[in-house]
């Protein structure tokens, strides 16, 4: 396989990650948001594995495995379980409608392309395309965090942002610490997940505590 073909395939996989980023903005049910996120993580894992293959750098396979196991399977399952367990509302609450959000998304993609073009004047078109795509994924993740109310969807937005960062990191040859970065991010995400979990549990126990309720009632009456 010649070099151009290899890069084109890499970009195609990158575009898949980007498309799933848009798909995340489009979904209206938390369950389908999580499924889409799992697909995005799967695409990211394929991207990392492909880069490991064409750059001949086996450590990227670790990144691919982390993306696949942790993000494509573990996190969506955990979040699904959380939603079921805590009885979180199943539809996505948006601060802005789906249509306007998608339009802003395209504007963000245009913005990242305009940013990347002058910065990477000397670089080849191949790096440029990859960087533009990864940056768009990052911005779409940010957009999702801004326009969604629910904590779970915000976490998904954060992880989508992180997917973009890893996409950028694996696309550049000789980037150090990619694996360490993905591990660190995964730990961070796990912390956030537990954070939500404990937060919700505390909230629930507060409201279910009879003793506490009695004192409140006494105050009111």
């Amino acid at each position, binding site marked *: 396989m010649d070099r151009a073909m290899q890069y*084109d395939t890499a970009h*195609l996989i990158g*575009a898949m990650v980007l*498309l799933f980023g848009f798909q995340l903005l489009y979904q209206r049910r938390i369950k389908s948001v999580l499924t889409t996120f799992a697909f995005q993580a799967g695409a990211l894992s394929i991207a990392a594995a492909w880069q490991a293959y064409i750059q001949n750098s086996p450590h990227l396979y670790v990144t691919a495995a982390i993306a696949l196991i942790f993000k494509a399977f573990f996190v969506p399952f955990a979040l699904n379980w959380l939603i079921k367990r805590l009885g979180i509302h199943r539809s996505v609450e948006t601060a802005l409608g*789906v*249509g306007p959000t*998608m*339009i802003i998304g395209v504007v963000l993609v*245009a913005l990242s392309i305009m940013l990347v073009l002058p910065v990477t004047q000397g670089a080849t078109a191949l790096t440029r395309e990859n960087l*533009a795509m990864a940056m768009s994924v990052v911005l779409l993740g940010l957009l999702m965090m801004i326009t969604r109310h629910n904590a779970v969807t915000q976490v998904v937005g954060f992880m989508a942002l992180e997917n973009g960062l890893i996409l950028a990191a694996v696309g550049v040859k000789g980037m150090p610490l990619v694996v360490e970065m993905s591990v660190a991010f995964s730990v961070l995400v796990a912390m956030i997940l537990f954070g939500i979990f404990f937060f919700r549990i505390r909230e629930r126990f507060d409201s279910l505590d009879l003793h506490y309720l009695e004192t409140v009632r006494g105050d009111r009456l």
Partner: protein
Amino acid sequence: MTLTSILWQIMQTLICLGAAPLVTGFVRFVKARLNGRQGPSPLQPYRDLARLLRKELVLAENASWLFRITPYLIFGFTWMAASLVPSFTTNLVLIPTADMITLVAMLGAARFMIALAGLDVGTSFGGLGASREMMIASLAEPAMLMTVFTLALLTGTTSPARIVDFVLAGGVGLQVSMGLALVAMILVAIAENGRIPIDNPATHLELTMVHEAMVLEYSGRHLALIEAAAMVRLMLYISLISCIFMPWGISQSGKGLEGLVIGLFAYGFKVMTLAALLGLFETVIAKMRVFRYADFLGGALLLSLLATLVLYVSEAV
């Protein structure tokens, strides 16, 4: 202009009409099987059309001349458009006139006529169908045109045959823009053919129907022509997608009879694969609310816009 190109043009024109009911029947057959039903034979649409052609024509009392000529116009526009899309060979006599923008315009004209006919008799369903059809059209056509522009920027031409030549010569490679344009084109094709997430071709439920609502007043040979036009349109979109995005096997001018036979088989295979995929897609997806059409088609428009944007970072432009 050679004799062979005239001959292949005639053959192509006949194929896109003659095989269209089979493709529609095949999609229905696949759907029936996936639903666990026996389903009618894929040849059923031929029988339906023959039955409609034999039946008496019933016209509404207040139907005007417009109502009567519309089926012929729609059928003519759609058939002409379909015969311009290279299916098994690009060695066709009408190829110099074939242009993606012309295709969009002809389909748009057919759509305009059918919306007028839907309004003509003055029943409430006709008006409802026409208004919904126009809403879909106002979103689908920009997306389609944007896709055409992307392809034109990438390949330097808007003629489907030249695009085929360009792609087969390896001028495109694996382009991200091509992938995005493909998704956008598929979304538009689903909407334009009234397939499931947008419109259900098999329903007469007033809340959901779009296309069926407009043609409710038609009967006999008029209905046969309109149904045939819908089948040819499905065939056209399948041909267009397969000739632009997977042109492998298509015969070009200069190739002999052998290339033509390969082209025919490749075309048949591609059409059947896409039709089976359409059946599968329609089985797994649910009908969408009318108010969500804008999201679906807006998505197609955004994708095609994105395809154009991405072109500017790659080397292609």
